[in-house]
């Protein structure tokens, strides 16, 4: 076995999330690829909680579908997570036997798991440690035992975790772990499922989530200022900076609201520092006005929107890809503003660095659309060679240019060297009002049009940035997918599944969502016979955005659904299959079985 998905649910105090973290950390240490998502009930504390951990010997692109192992410390809690913890006929179910449910009468509708273990987990914990707090350590022992995974590393992790609480607790947990392991050995699985060993060496993998990765990447990219306001699911970016940014001579302002947050960031940028803000939908809405100011004042600024379900307060803890329209168009007047999106925790590094680089290079606000899934899931990341990245900084005026400085000088590429307070001779007036080259206010239609033209023209080089797009699969395949953000991972897995079904598919994953790089899409569409733009939104926003600039062939359609109920790889494959059949061109007859 080379891929294992474990789901656990319990009450707030049960510590299933903490157990999941121990498991993924151990797996990561040993070199497994892994991913972990967590989910909570609506109660702030003491409610139900759950996590999913997926371990694999090869790259993991998404949290996966049905569970291989389902752990219910409490059935009520487990069931509250519904579709997030799907049990299939292949699932091994482990549950606390004290709940009184009989193994042949599980409260699972319409499915009979492969194998069921009713285990007195609490009692075993009490036996090992004197209290039932170590229930999840028992579970870790069971998992290590049955799947032969990360035994040493879990123990190593438990040791570290409980060390500052005293040697006794460490020993108690070691005992609980051993008890779980022993139970597993004594009750072997019907179908043994030991995990293969990963390749790679201990400790070479990173483990983090998208928010922390974004914050760390921004420090790498030279960020010196963060202004923002807490909002789920973006707050961890600010939290990271309040711990780290000072160390680099930077400053953080937890502002009174999102407007002040982006305002302060823009001020820092005006003062010549690289600056950012991060938020989610409702905060983005509030930042709209100052984003427009950044555009016309031609100041670099990175704005991270960690998308959640909308509209309005919507679904604060669930991912959705429904802020694309807002990112592209939320501003009055004619505005062109680059929008980027990472697709995983790992490439959140790349995309964040790109966001800062583009902002500086083109003196523009840049929006990075992350989403709750990427932002808050933990993922193993292979080492990143930071020396392979360039870090751009804005073009400053030369001494000669400062002699007769003109802030918004019409240059060939539309980018005008920019000074900042403190620089003698560079004195100018920044403004939101339309201005001439010197920066003075104007109401001239001619100047206004010329300045709009300049602000659009400077971004033209983005059309040629093929490095911001990734084509996977056979580039000449007749079946095609386009996917962005976290759903790209779903489509990557779908690509593998499709290949296994002998479907010939290619996948385009854009990091750059807007402006639409027209040629990239035109080239991609060439030869396509059927295609899907896969998105986690009600409308399918990228699909429509593409249509604005590119003649999307009618055989390419939108496949989308609102958030909190993510599209699964198998659904994508089913769609592709359907499309391929509809083409009256059965690529592979056995595929009809799917």
């Amino acid at each position, binding site marked *: 076995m080379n891929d294992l998905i474990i789901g656990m649910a319990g009450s707030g105090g049960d510590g299933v999330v903490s157990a999941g973290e121990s498991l993924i950390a151990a797996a990561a240490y040993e070199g497994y690829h892994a991913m972990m998502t967590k989910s909570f009930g609506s109660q702030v504390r003491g409610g139900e909680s759950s996590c999913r951990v997926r371990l694999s010997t090869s790259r993991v692109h998404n949290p996966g579908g049905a569970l291989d192992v389902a752990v219910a410390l409490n059935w009520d809690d487990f069931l509250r997570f519904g579709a997030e913890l799907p049990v299939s006929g292949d699932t091994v179910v482990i549950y606390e036997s004290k709940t009184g449910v009989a193994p042949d009468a599980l409260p699972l509708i319409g499915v009979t798991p492969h194998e069921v273990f009713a285990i007195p987990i609490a009692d075993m914990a009490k036996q090992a440690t004197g209290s039932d707090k170590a229930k999840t350590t028992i579970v870790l022992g069971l998992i290590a035992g049955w799947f032969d995974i990360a035994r040493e590393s879990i123990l190593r992790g438990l040791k570290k975790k409980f060390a500052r609480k005293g040697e006794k607790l460490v020993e108690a947990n070691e005992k609980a772990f051993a008890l779980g392991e022993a139970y597993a050995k004594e009750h072997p699985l019907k179908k043994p499922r030991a995990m293969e060993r990963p390749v790679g060496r201990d400790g070479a993998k990173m483990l983090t989530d998208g928010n922390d990765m974004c914050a760390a990447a921004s420090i790498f990219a030279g960020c010196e200022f963060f202004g923002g306001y807490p909002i789920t699911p973006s707050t961890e970016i600010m939290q990271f900076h309040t711990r780290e940014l000072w*160390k680099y001579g930077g400053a953080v302002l937890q502002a009174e609201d999102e407007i002040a947050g982006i305002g302060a960031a823009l*001020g820092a940028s005006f*003062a010549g520092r690289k600056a950012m803000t991060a938020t989610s939908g409702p905060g983005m809405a509030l930042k709209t006005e*100052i984003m427009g100011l950044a555009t016309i004042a031609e100041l670099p600024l990175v704005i991270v929107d960690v998308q959640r379900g909308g509209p309005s307060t919507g679904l604060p803890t669930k991912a959705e890809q429904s802020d694309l329209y807002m990112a592209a168009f939320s501003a009055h007047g004619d505005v062109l503003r680059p929008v980027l999106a990472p697709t995983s925790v790992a490439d959140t590094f790349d995309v964040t660095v790109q966001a800062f680089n583009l902002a500086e290079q083109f003196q523009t606000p840049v929006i990075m659309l992350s989403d709750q899934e990427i932002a808050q899931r933990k993922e193993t990341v292979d080492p990143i060679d930071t020396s392979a990245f360039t870090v751009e900084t804005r073009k400053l005026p030369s001494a000669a240019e400062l002699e007769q400085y003109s802030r918004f000088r019409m240059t060939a590429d539309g980018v005008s060297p920019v000074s*900042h307070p403190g620089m003698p001779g560079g004195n100018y007036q920044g403004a939101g009002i339309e201005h001439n080259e010197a920066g003075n206010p104007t109401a001239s239609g001619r100047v206004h049009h010329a300045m709009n033209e300049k602000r659009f023209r400077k971004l033209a080089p983005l059309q040629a940035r093929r490095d911001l797009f990734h084509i996977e699969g056979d580039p000449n395949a007749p079946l095609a997918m386009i996917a962005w953000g976290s759903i790209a991972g779903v489509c990557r897995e779908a690509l593998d599944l499709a290949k296994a079904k002998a479907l010939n598919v290619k996948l385009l994953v854009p990091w750059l969502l807007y402006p639409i790089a027209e040629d990239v899409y035109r080239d991609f569409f060439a030869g396509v016979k059927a295609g899907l733009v896969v998105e986690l939104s009600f409308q399918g926003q990228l699909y429509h955005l593409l249509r604005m600039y590119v003649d999307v062939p009618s055989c390419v359609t939108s496949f989308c659904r609102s958030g909190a109920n993510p599209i699964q790889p198998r659904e994508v494959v089913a769609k592709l299959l359907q499309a391929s059949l509809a083409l009256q061109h059965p690529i592979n007859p056995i595929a009809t079985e799917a």
Partner: protein
Amino acid sequence: MSSIPVERPALQAKDFKSDLKPIWCPGCGDFGVLQAIYRALAGIGRPPHEIAFVSGIGCSSRIPGYTTAYGFNSVHGRALPIAQGIKLARPELLVLVAGGDGDGFSIGGGHVAHAIRRNIDLTYIVMDNQIYGLTKGQLSPTSPRGLKTVTSEYGSLEAPVNPLLYVLAYGASFVAQGTPADMAGLADVIEQAIRHPGFSFVNVQSPCVTFAPEDQQVKAQRGRMKTLASVGHDSTNRLAAMGLAQTYGEVLYTGVLYKDPAPQPTLDALVRERQAKLALEAVPRERILDMFLQK
């Protein structure tokens, strides 16, 4: 002394005057405020490129453009957040903020308390004309009750904001008031405000000659003016200052209403201290990802 060469030639008011001709109405009080700022800046002696002058939107908010400083005529009501970002990013700059009563206490009103409680070293000058000038004469938050304007045909039904009392309650470290009817006094309080370490606030009763009623004009002001010195006010007593501030709208007190005798450290100073201390813990930026390694 005269034989020692000075590093920089002393600056004069005219060095802060830009080439842009103000487009205020003839007689607007803001002309006087501009002159007072020139004088105060000359007194301070920092060269224009070391000054960042931020404003919102309004007639009054045009003021940075008439100076040679780096200016940022931003958007309505957001001058203070932008200025705070500038100061935290470059604490070595002299950061001035100016704007109207509407800009500062209506749309921007939510930012004032926070700028003040952070005690960032900024000087905030409000040109309080009790009216919306730029948009042609609507009620402003400081308009007196009963005022008839284009948005209050039958008279305003709302009590005005009291800028002086508000900033005192917010804990501002320096609070003063002036008017272009007393130019010397105005230039003086502005210079004091800039010199004061920490957040300083100057309310200027700057008449809008076009839209404000007769009793807000310079002539009428003269009847209501009283220097704080003349009433023997102790400017180190915040509660006493609050008491006097309650007469806002009736008496026009000029001078320093409150000045913290033992100013607290400014946020920008505390930040620099923190940065210096934590710099020791920094891993190089290019190795920042090391923290995610599973060791």
